[in-house]
């Protein structure tokens, strides 16, 4: 039997066995937006970004050459110990615009940094225990470094690997640097511009699996993950550094976080069907409205007259001069032309039949589901549910069911839906 599986766990497990939550249609609306590939400001899950946008901006891989280092005054060991490249993938699916040009390894980009590669840039707001822990991590990494072989022979092996995986342009650069190199760490700085609030994934390639990673994001945030994903919410410049347990160098990149606008709007129905939209966006320079399927506008505060009532999806995308954008969407609900009435409880074996306030509005169909969501009954034209289960027996007293009403027009198009619960009386 399973060890340590006692009453607490059993109790916890049982409590959730048949637990169900009521449906929240907003959640579907958001998911639908994501499925449609539109972005919405509230949809910022990392996983979705990873799934949908890993491919973006893949052209920004660049080469990093790290050098072995020893006491520079003695200048003993020289050579390339490891070649790696690490790439930054902006993970925003708002903006699918092309590549960000990055400077490949260039003499000017190489400079000497004597200071310890890690601790600087860590802000005071790092809480102490966390910081102590990270310092211990650094120390252990530095320990590992001492035992690493640092020979020139590594050059060839690694250059082959790199050549295979990088474009020709990169290879040229590598070869240029294969001469004995500085005995100091290289700092490669290539700026990547992203908008505030965008996800960015830090990717490493060609780094031996055994290497341990320590990322410093320049904002008091650290990670030991191989490929961390981060969001920078505050505009500004961040120096992101990576140190590897295999070498003492720091691999550095600059992230420039551009300010992002915030899309917001309100609406009100001035007269039947006529809706005035008020743009409440912040720090935006341009607005793009999608108000109806066929109506778009770049006005700041557009007005639109809907011909039909019901739920309408409105999207506002705003952009600023940096090319950063934000979107907001919402369903606005214009007076419902029809209402569904249905009893909230019926006696066992009593008929259940929802009805429309305006019977001519359309054809009503309904389904009954148990609280597990399984279909119990599907209506035939105008006929009620008699409170029976699929096996012909009557539903148990005190049990509860969900109903879903769909109203279709003459051409079979769904024009209205509603849902609710019905209980079988004891």
């Amino acid at each position, binding site marked *: 039997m*399973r060890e*340590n*599986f*006692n*009453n*607490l*766990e*059993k*109790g*916890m*497990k*049982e*409590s*959730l066995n048949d*637990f*169900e*939550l*009521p*449906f*929240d249609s907003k*959640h*579907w609306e*958001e*998911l*639908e937006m*994501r*499925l449609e590939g539109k972005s919405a400001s509230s*949809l*910022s*899950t*990392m*996983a*979705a970004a990873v*799934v949908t946008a890993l491919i973006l901006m893949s052209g920004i891989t660049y080469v990093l050459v790290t050098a072995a280092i020893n006491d520079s005054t003695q200048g003993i060991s020289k050579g390339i110990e490891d070649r790696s490249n690490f790439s930054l993938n902006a993970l925003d699916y708002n903006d699918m615009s092309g590549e960000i040009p990055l400077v490949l390894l260039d003499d000017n980009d190489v400079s000497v940094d004597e200071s310890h590669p890690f601790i600087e840039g860590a802000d005071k707001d790092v809480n102490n*225990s*966390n910081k*102590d*822990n990270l310092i211990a*991590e650094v120390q252990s990494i530095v320990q590992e470094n001492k035992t690493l072989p640092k020979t020139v022979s590594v050059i060839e092996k690694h250059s082959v690997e790199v050549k295979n995986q990088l474009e020709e342009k990169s290879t040229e650069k590598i070869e240029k640097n294969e001469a004995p190199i500085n005995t100091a760490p290289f700092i490669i700085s290539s700026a990547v511009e992203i908008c505030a609030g965008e996800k960015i994934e830090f990717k490493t390639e060609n780094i031996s699996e055994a290497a341990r990673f320590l990322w410093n994001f320049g904002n008091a945030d650290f*990670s*030991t*993950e191989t490929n961390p*994903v981060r969001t920078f919410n505050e505009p500004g410049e961040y120096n992101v550094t990576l140190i590897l347990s295999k070498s003492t160098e720091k691999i550095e990149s600059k992230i420039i976080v551009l300010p992002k606008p915030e899309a917001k709007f309100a609406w009100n129905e001035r007269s039947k069907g006529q809706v005035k939209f008020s743009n409440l966006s912040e720090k935006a320079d341009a607005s793009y409205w999608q108000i109806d399927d066929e109506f778009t506008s770049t006005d700041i505060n557009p007005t639109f007259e809907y011909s039909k009532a019901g739920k309408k999806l409105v999207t506002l995308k705003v952009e600023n001069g940096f090319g950063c954008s934000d979107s907001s969407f919402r369903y606005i609900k214009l007076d419902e032309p029809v209402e569904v009435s249905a009893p909230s409880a019926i006696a066992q074996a009593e008929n259940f039949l929802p009805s429309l306030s305006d019977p001519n509005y359309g054809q009503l169909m309904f389904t009954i*589901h148990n*609280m*597990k*969501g*399984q*279909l119990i009954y599907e209506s035939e034209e105008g006929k009620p549910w008699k409170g029976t289960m*699929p096996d012909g027996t009557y539903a148990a007293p005190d049990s509860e069911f969900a109903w*879903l009403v769909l109203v279709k027009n003459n051409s079979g198009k*769904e024009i209205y839906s509603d849902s609710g619960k019905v209980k079988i009386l004891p």
Partner: protein
Amino acid sequence: MSSEKSEFIELARLCASGDRKAQERLYRLFYGRMLPVCLRYAKDSELAKDLLQDAFIKVFSKIKSYDGVGSLEGWIRRIVVNNAIDEFRKKKNDFFLMESIENFSETEEEEDDDKEVKLKASQVIEALQELTPAYRAVFNMFVFEEMTHAEIAEKVGISVGTSKSNLSKAKRNLKNILLRDQRF
């Protein structure tokens, strides 16, 4: 019940074809039972909602491969659980790193008495959400998903020992949380 099964297969087929109405129907059908699964793994309901949406995006992209052999609910639940564990695994280094700084005295696991424990679902979810991410994940996998420590270790990429110690710390913390709120 075979009509229900064939209905599910038809629904799955429509979902696979990208029929948005069918996808909505599927989401509605399983929302109520899958959201609590995500709530167990997430630290709040906003993140749980995101986890569920991510999982359903996967469900819709994989549903072609649903063959109707097992139950559709079980098939979806597996995707929901795996998605939640994947999310955790991506960040696990941070989590386990953070937790190593907590100083727990390594006392022996105390024996539980035999009294039955009755808890409300909301209490359980709230207590789970108070746990640190690593404890929560390991507890969920062991207790709710009924995985062994070896399976957890392999799935998350930690050692069996880490899994065991996280489980026992999770249990202790849960007991404290529930006791504190006088629910246990």
